[in-house]
């Protein structure tokens, strides 16, 4: 009796499936509980990986609920690569689709933020420009094009995402108030840090990433967000080492 890896794999992920024939103990009796060691290793190690990957979700739901969710998630979405540090890419969509959790609408966004923090942690190293790199006359600043650090991440949300994250990660953080908050992640050295993004900042960054100058991006952004604070956005990026190059294309004279 040979046991294919397809059979083994199916029985591994389905706790109600029978132990495959052809697996034995030392006295040639069916392996029974011995097979459960593998079942258990897979479920426990992946559940543990989910706890580590999503600490704020775990805190919001409680560890036992997280165990239950992880148990369903890992069977639906086993890791697709051996890079366990990136496990859980599908978790935000999975959370959004859970009927029982629809009363906590912001969970998926919190999961996206936790994924973005991990992506930032493992992103390529880069050198931020000097803090005074943009200490230029205004007419030059508007012509500048910027490049951002690979570790910089933007997470948009219709929920007060930054406040929710902070309330569940820091002691004595204020209670979240209603309202939409985007989050900017910068990584000055090796530790990614989330910041509250100024209103419109996410749009402005997207315009700059699309190749627009600071000035063009500002015009696009303030058309929609008249209150957009360019100075505050640039300060956050500069302090976080998230701007890696400043190029100014001067007009030919």
């Amino acid at each position, binding site marked *: *009796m*040979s*046991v*294919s*890896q*397809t059979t*083994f*794999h199916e029985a*591994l992920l389905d706790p109600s499936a029978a132990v495959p*024939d*052809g*697996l*034995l*103990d*030392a*006295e*040639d*009796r069916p*392996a*029974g*509980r*011995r*097979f459960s*060691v*593998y079942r258990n*290793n*897979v479920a426990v*190690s*992946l559940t543990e*990986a989910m706890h580590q990957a999503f600490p704020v979700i775990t805190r919001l739901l409680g560890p036992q609920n997280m165990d239950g969710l992880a148990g369903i998630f890992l069977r639906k979405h*086993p*890791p*697709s*690569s*051996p*890079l*366990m*540090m990136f496990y859980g890419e599908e978790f935000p969509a999975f959370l959004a689709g859970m009927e029982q959790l629809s009363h906590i609408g912001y969970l998926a966004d919190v999961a996206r933020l936790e994924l973005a923090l991990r992506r930032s*942690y*493992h*992103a*390529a*190293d*880069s050198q931020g420009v000097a803090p005074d790199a943009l200490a230029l006359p205004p007419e030059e600043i508007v012509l500048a094009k910027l490049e951002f650090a*690979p*570790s910089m991440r933007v997470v948009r949300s219709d929920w007060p995402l930054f406040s929710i994250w902070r309330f569940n990660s820091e002691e004595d953080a204020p209670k979240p108030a209603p309202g939409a908050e985007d989050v900017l992640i910068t*990584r000055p050295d*090796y*530790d990614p840090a989330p910041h509250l993004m100024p209103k419109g900042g996410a749009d402005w960054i997207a315009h700059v990433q699309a190749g627009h100058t600071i000035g063009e991006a500002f015009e696009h952004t303030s058309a929609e967000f008249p209150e957009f604070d360019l100075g505050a956005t640039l300060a956050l990026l500069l302090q976080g080492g998230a701007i890696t190059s400043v190029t100014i294309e001067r007009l030919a004279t």
Partner: protein
Amino acid sequence: MLDSSLRSNRLPAAPGVGYKPQHFDQILDHAHPVGWLEIHAENYMGDGGRPLAQLRHLSEQFPISVHGVGLSIGGEGPLDPDHLSRLKHLVGWLNPASFSEHLAWSTHDSHFLNDLLPLPNTDETLARVCEHIDQVQETVGRQMLLENPSSYLAFEESTWSEPDFLREIARRTGCGLLLDVNNVFVSATNLEFSPQGYIDAYPLENVHEIHLGGHDEDEDDHGRPLLIDSHGREVVDPVWALLDYVLDRSGPKPVLIEWDTDVPEWPILRAEAERAQAALDRIPA
């Protein structure tokens, strides 16, 4: 079959430990920490950040062993080309003292199961594993060491004993072997064979590294002992005794302490490494 010029294992015959980031400062502060460090390859396959910075730093002071846990050498399907090139990249820039993987499978239908799953010792497995090892050694450009598994059950279809199976793989591919002495003890208890008999049959001349780790104790459906390779505690006395048995026959080897779950404070891990040093010291030069 591997070109013999690529057999470059440079781990010292000294104790090493599995590296855990929480021990970074203590390892660097310690005057004589350990002879070498082992890392799990997959944890260092990001693009940058602290893990790689720490590894670059440690590699300036310690011989590093790259131990893969995700290649699925025994998988029925082809090896994952992306993962293979990530390994090639890591081994390429780090130029580690040793590179090893497991006689196991962990990926099926592009699902990675995060566990070392068992293989039947058949001619079919042998052919497949050898083909995969050839591919790994060709791609990565150096010899790999293959580690013996911990077994909780046996396959009815197996026709080879494990030591013969490993000897044949090493003969056909030119790979070296990593002998996990705790795994031998765990398998011998679970499948009721003599661990010394296993060592007597095992090709010690191909061993370039030894692993030691802690295991958990459980019972099967019939109340028989079922040991589980958890790497979550101290190495037990019978495994230290089995290490002595091995070293008496193999001579000095690099000996690694694996501790991957419930990772202890540095002094506890370091004490295990000292015990491995004592085991190495007692064999006549």
